[in-house]
């Protein structure tokens, strides 16, 4: 059995580059992009010139991949934009569930200061904060010229702010917010006395 040189070459490349660089990329929008689920790219960019030297197998015509029919592509893009905006709204609404859960946990934790209630309160404060920090990142995958991300973003921010407010409210019910006069005066030392007096019953 004869082996075609290109295949042999491929194997060679393979062997010489052990461990091989496997570029495995999962397609994210699987429903949109069609049947292909995954692809293995055995070559990295450095090895492209070597494969370029090899003539195409007989009967193989190189068709430019990007030059698909435009109608199909447009359709695809629309679907993708749709999907993205739908997804963005989903993501934006996600903190709501979180909010409900947090509220329930807080109710559970009671209003006394102990590890459980402190933990819950701080996670309630921290989660919205970290989420707000990463607003851009969360909506990154759904970035598209056709998708309007402002509304979901605003909803997302509002919900998170709500969560944070809930945390602050909890903090207040725990009595950890300095909202009373007692919180400001309890650290004040006693006032200095001007006069000094000593004495007592005569020593005997």
């Amino acid at each position, binding site marked *: 059995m004869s082996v075609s040189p290109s295949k042999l070459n491929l194997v060679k490349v393979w062997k010489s580059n052990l461990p091989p660089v496997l570029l495995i990329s999962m397609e994210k929008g699987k429903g949109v992009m069609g049947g292909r689920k995954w692809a293995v790219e055995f070559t990295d960019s450095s090895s492209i010139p070597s494969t370029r030297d090899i003539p195409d197998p007989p009967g193989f015509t190189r068709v430019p991949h990007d030059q698909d029919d435009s109608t199909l592509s447009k359709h695809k893009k629309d679907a993708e934009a749709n999907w993205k905006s739908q997804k963005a709204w989903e993501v934006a609404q996600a903190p709501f569930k979180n909010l409900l859960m947090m509220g329930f946990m807080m109710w559970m934790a009671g209003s006394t200061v102990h590890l459980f209630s402190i933990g819950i309160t701080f996670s309630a404060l921290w989660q919205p904060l970290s989420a707000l920090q990463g607003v851009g990142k969360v909506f990154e995958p759904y970035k598209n010229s056709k998708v309007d991300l402002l509304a979901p973003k605003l909803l997302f921010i509002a919900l998170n702010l709500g969560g944070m407010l809930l945390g602050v409210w909890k903090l207040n019910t725990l009595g950890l917010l300095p*909202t009373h*006069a007692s919180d400001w*005066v309890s650290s*004040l030392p006693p006032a200095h006395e001007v006069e000094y007096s000593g004495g007592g019953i*005569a020593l005997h």
Partner: protein
Amino acid sequence: MDPKVIPNTPKHASSSQIPPPPFSLFIPTNNLIAMAMAIKLPLILLFFSSSLIPTFSLFEDQVGLMDWHQRYIGKVKHAVFHTQKAGRKRVVVSTEENVIASLDLRRGEIFWRHVLGANDVVDKIDIALGKYVITLSSEGSILRAWNLPDGQMVWESFLSGSKSSKALLTVPANLKVDLDSPIIVYSGACIHAISSIDGEYLWKKDFASEGSVDVHQLILPGGSDVVHAVGVTDSSQFDTYEIHIKNGGLLKHTSASFPGGIYGEILPISGDRFVVLDASRSVLVLITIENGQIHLEQTHISDLIHGSSGNTVILPSKLSGIFSLRTDNGIVFIKVTDEGKLNVMEKVDKTVVISDALPLSEGEQAFALVQHGDGKIELSVRLVHDMSSNHLKETVKMDHERGFVHKIFINNYVRTDRSHGFRALIVMEDHSLLLLQQGEIVWTRDDGLASVIDVATSELPVEKIGVSVAKVEHSLFEWLKGHMLKLKGTLMLATPDEVAAIQKIRLQSSEKSRMTRDHNGFRRLLILLTRAGKLYALHTGDGRVVWSTLLQSLRTTSQQCAGIKLHQWQVPHHHALDNNPSVLVVGRCGLSLTSPSALSIVDAYTGKELQNMGPVQHSTVQVISLPFRDSSEQQLHLLIDADKRAHLYPTTPEAAHIFQRESENVYWYSVESEAGILRGYGVKKSHSSDTPSEYCFETRNLWSVVFPSESEKIIGTVTRKPNEVVHTQAKVIADEDVMYKYISKNMLFVATVSPKASGPIGSATPDESVLVVYLVDTVTGRILHRMTHLGSQGPVHAVLSENWVVYHYFNLRAHRYGMSIIEIYDQSRAENKDILKLIVGKHNLTTPVSSYSRPEVTTKSQSYFFTHSVKAISVTSTAKGITSKHLLIGTIGDQVLALDKRFVDPRRSLNPTQADKEEGLLPLTDALPIIPQSYVTHSFKVEGLRGIETVPAKLESTSLVFAYGVDLFHTRIAPSRTYDSLTEDFNYALLLLTILALVVAIFVTWVLSERKDLQDKWSWPQTQLWLQSSSEQRLLNICSTPVNMFVNQNR
């Protein structure tokens, strides 16, 4: 879930678990989720309110870890040896602290001990029937018999007399006498006969009917049925009585008048001879009873001893045929010959101390003389019939710091060669007790520590840097070993031997007794001034005496000098760090208030007297430690003399300058309890011309508070401790509201009772006894608060701290002791409640306050019943004043009880609201609870408890407690538990081991996960196929699958 009950742990022997403090985080370590599910607010509240009862308690195996207890007896007055026919040789002593004790003669340990009350002064002790210790106390009105081996009281008899007189005790010495021969006691001008077996009262002979005869001696001649009593009537007539021992019948009475009067006591020389001094102290009178007649023979002392003056005393040592006379020049032994002639035998030095005669064998008697030399004492034992030579002479090295010998008691033993050996018990000037035998000190007891007058504390020196590597390695090894043992103990793997070793390591931890400052401030020096004028420094770690000094400034004069007060003099913190801290001892030479004072400054590290300023010219009735320091960090002190002049110390220009700068704001006050007057004084800035020195300042009377003498009599005052630290001026109450405490160092609590009720409890009816308490500002004399307790009386014990005072008294109507609290709040600051203003700092809370601004105050008070009568009250003090406080109550049972301050909170109510409960207010009860676990002295008693001192440790949670009386006790307590440190028995080895195991686990899992990751990367379906197949097949697979297609398409 419930952290309160751990029934089966071995530690649970003696106490219940301590509930968490109110403000520490409550951290349930298990079952978080279960807790979350189960959390219901009422349940939590119930749990908290049930756990709010705070207890201070410790486990059985923690005893001795941080506490120590020392038992003392005080200065010995009488000693009776019990060595014949006894398995355990012992000496029974009575002391000036009213202690009777049986001491082991071998080691000086206490076999048993009884501390009689402060009013029950022991007059005489003796041993009867060879098995009972007989004590006569309370001016001869109580006779008790104690079982010699174990100290159990066998019987007690109360002897009532017609008038007070001296107390004499005669116990039939000889065992050969009939068992029913009674104990003869003279007291209350009566002779009582009491059966020695059961204390039955046999008969009484009242001398009050015989004229005002004062019996001086009771003599019970062996083998006869007659008691001889020798006495004096109106100091001009000698009387002798012969009384029948069985029925008290008077057999014979003879008398002879002596117009010259007598001085002192009649001393018996032999059975029928007595000697006494006449009133002028210049004539010796020899009394001879012959054939029922009294012959008096007078001899001028100047005939016997040349150049003697009037200060002659007959020493009370009973030597047969000889007596000793102390004159200004020395001590003279005088022999009384059979013909009644007086012969001077020998003169010895004035400091010589003579013991009583000790009968050796028939007709042979010995006595001991102790002479004080330079750094040594000479003990010589002589036979009475052969005074010329010393029977025994021993020289014993003696510590200078013990001073002179005060008393000596001797006892003999028969050596194997049938000769007599002697042991001598000597009492030194510093009240210590020593046993000498064969020229050596067998044991010593520092019994001066039984009479502590004042307490101060001092830091220890800072640790020097530079510890050798070997030492570190060794200690590291030891440390590891100890912790491995502990780990074994924790895991219950230890054998009984190892458990014992663990306990030993814990108790003898070298950490706690080191002589350097520690991080937590637990190691300190307790500096104690004793009645003997000796200063002791005790280490708080183990209670050992670090140094002791007999203060020379109190010994220089011939007068009786005694220390009265101890103050911190120099505490180097920022400057003068190379100086050691020092204390100021103020003493007084003489008994009256106007006697000159003696001052001494003592180095707290070494005990050396740095400065000896005694006796200074002025007297001292007050010592005021001013809150100012000079550049070398010496505290300025004002000593007020009897003429109300203020003397400034240290006497340096710098101190004078500082004082003159501040003198406008320096005041002092005096409490004249007899007159019922409080007076306040200001200090004049410049010293007037008639003051003796430039450090002496005149004072002027500013105000007086005169209590009506017909209705009020001052029975007690108390002020805040000057070094108390208060953390905050605000008290946060329910609903986050704030009350501002009235915190003033110049607040004085005064308690007065109606004069009728100033006696003991029961001396007045409830209607005529009124207790009034005052809070007085001592700068202006303003009465801040006055409260009347009808039907109550003293004694009042009180403690003032921060803005509250707690006092203890007797409620006559309820027939119970009561405790009240007054909390005082500043109304003038109550307006400071605007948060915005507080945030930006627009408030008057930190501006200096003056008493002359007359701040408006309100008070809250509440009263409770308390079961115990109280000897002393104190309160815990911590470094920053953040930790909640415990009252330390010295109970009548000589224990120290820690009572949480929250029990005495005037805001307690019968039905606390929800907010009150959350705040931690306890529901009001009529009596304060006494929780057995909260006795800080646990199983010990601090006999004769007189005071409780608290010293803050550096660790905020912890307070050092030192209780003193006849015994000393020290421990440290944490009123809110040690929330800022790990406990002593925290297992560091276990922690290390856990960390190590975790690190290993992290490493192992990391390696495993790496490997797994790699495998996962290899195990995608296609590649997995290749891995599973042989190499040729792989090739085939590659060829046959359209890999290329993928590759190309993807590109």
